[in-house]
């Protein structure tokens, strides 16, 4: 297992290196001069040249990339063109907001999708099954920003139960964090829940018709035991991947929702960085998201190997 983890970590490092290269090259293709944008109306040629030299932008590309990598290895991702603050600090500051939103949304989605998907499959054709189908259809076809706006109008406007937007850190005040995270998390979570419900339902349905389930029934096991021990243990293995993909994509920040709810996470940061052509920050954000993605994948592979004895780790 240790060797498996080590190998996967090394693989991830290589992928991450590739990500830095791709992001670096892509940014060269984006039109617009970041230094010019940063200077705005205060433009004068001397300052311009000085700033370019300070950012290393007057060097040839390979040199720029090598120097970026060298610094990145020591945790130095450069400074923001806009504020002059270190990128690593800016990016890490935004992490808790995105992390807490993503995790809350996924937990909410799991709480809805597991019971709904399982019951829909076990009682396929029943009222619950139909309700689950309508729910999934609704969740995947209604745009999340529209759901978010409706949520704000209802719960913040009409009922006044929740704040319409804003962020309070979990570590500062858990209670107020909860009231602030509720609306964005449910909005994002509903979409995730409808995708998961669909997937769990079809996975459970497939396993229900497996020969080994008939074997378990032939043994005269109680229904509950057949479902829990034989059906779910098998049906939920592929669900792990889907949950992980959902979580990973939410960790990248949900731009529309973060903007709508004034949630200062990675998505919002990316949005602002793009608008301001703040390349170092954009690069840093993409790098962090890629690293999180790889981390989630690594954890899933380890979990998979634990859940499915047919997978041998070497």
């Amino acid at each position, binding site marked *: 297992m240790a060797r498996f983890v080590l190998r996967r970590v090394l693989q991830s490092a290589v992928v991450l290196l590739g990500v830095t290269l791709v992001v670096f090259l892509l940014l060269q293709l984006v039109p617009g001069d970041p230094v010019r944008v940063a200077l705005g109306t205060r433009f004068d040629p001397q300052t311009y040249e000085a700033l370019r030299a300070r950012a290393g932008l007057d060097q040839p590309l390979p040199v720029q990339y090598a120097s970026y990598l060298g610094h990145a290895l020591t945790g130095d991702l450069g400074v923001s063109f806009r504020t002059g603050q270190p990128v690593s600090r800016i990016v890490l500051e935004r992490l808790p907001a995105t992390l807490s939103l993503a995790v809350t949304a996924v937990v909410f989605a799991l709480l809805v999708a597991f019971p709904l998907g399982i019951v829909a499959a076990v009682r396929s054709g029943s009222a619950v099954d139909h309700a689950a189908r309508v729910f999934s259809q609704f969740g995947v076809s209604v745009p999340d920003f529209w759901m978010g706006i409706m949520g704000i109008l209802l719960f913040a406007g009409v009922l006044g139960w929740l704040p319409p937007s804003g962020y309070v850190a979990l570590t500062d005040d858990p209670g107020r964090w909860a009231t602030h995270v509720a609306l964005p998390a449910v909005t994002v979570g509903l979409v995730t829940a409808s995708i998961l419900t669909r997937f769990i339902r079809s996975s459970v349905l497939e396993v229900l018709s497996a020969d080994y389930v008939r*074997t378990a029934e*032939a043994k005269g096991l109680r229904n509950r035991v057949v479902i829990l021990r034989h059906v779910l243990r098998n049906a939920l293995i592929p669900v792990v991947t889907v949950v992980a993909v959902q979580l990973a994509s939410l960790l990248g920040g949900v731009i529309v929702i973060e903007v709508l709810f004034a949630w200062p996470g990675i998505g919002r940061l990316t949005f602002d960085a793009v608008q301001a052509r703040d390349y170092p920050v954009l690069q840093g954000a993409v790098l962090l998201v890629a690293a999180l993605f790889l981390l989630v994948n690594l954890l899933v592979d380890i979990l998979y190997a634990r859940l499915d004895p047919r997978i041998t780790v070497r």
Partner: protein
Amino acid sequence: MSDRTERSEGRESVPSQRRTSDRPVLSVEDLTVTVGTRRGPAHAVAGVSWQVRAGETFALVGESGSGKSMTLLAATGLAPRAATVTGRVRLLDSELTALPDDRRRRLRGRHVGFVFQDPMTSLNPVLPVGRQVTEAAEEHLGLSRRAARDRAVELLDLVGIPSAARRVDAYPHQFSGGMRQRVVIAMALACEPDLLIADEPTTALDVTTQAQIVELVADLQQRLGTAVVWVTHDLGVVAGIADTVAVMYGGRIVEQGPVDAVFDTPTHPYTRALLAARPDPSRRGEDLVAIPGAPPSPLDLPPGCAFWPRCPVRADPRCAHELPPLTPVGDGHTVRTFYPGETP
């Protein structure tokens, strides 16, 4: 520990008791199974009656789709949800068809063991085999997890799995097909059932392994005195191990009787065709060789004799319109045709 001693004593004393008993372990009376499908009701089983006694082997043969599996599943309460089952089924002293699902489930687990066709798919891939072998015993005999594990080793050993103590925690994918079928047999025997139902248990295996599995079940039956229902395409196996045989065609039994009688004096044109189609009666591992034509669809069973379109005798137009009755032609030997023993 005391549990185990008791059990092994019990096992030695049971067979003699069972062999002397004359009442059927399972009796099926006028069983019909109709499955609702998108294209209308499918008459998978259209009224069959048979029984099997302790220590006896009852073989069910017939072409694919003739209703063999459905008969057994419906008799034990395992028919699919879309199926309607009528008729009477008695397991030991209980009228299964009159019982609520939960009682039937417990009786089935306690008294009936199943071996299904494909050992590659009939075991749960993510549960250690030992656990699968004895979970029925945990449920129905109240064995503790610990006692169950010991019992699993004992059972795996009984069915001839080498180094059972080491392999009890292995997973199905770590076994070959033949070994998996041994695991399934061990599983079927976990509660020392009165009845073992084997639905084409060797079809998915290679010829050598087939012979070993047949021998294993025959040997276990000798030792444990279990009643066995064996579904097969292999007439060689029927001749070798069965006491009674029933030939199914189009959801009905067309000929039934002691194996010797049926093999020596096959009376239904279908049975005769089956036996004639065997190239060499001493050879095992032959599937039923095709008879020209196709069996009837259960969606559209003919009103008369189901074999009529393919029957080489077909002496009379009434075969097409009237259902021939089951007629006795010998001691316990019955046949469903208007023209017993007729040759074309």
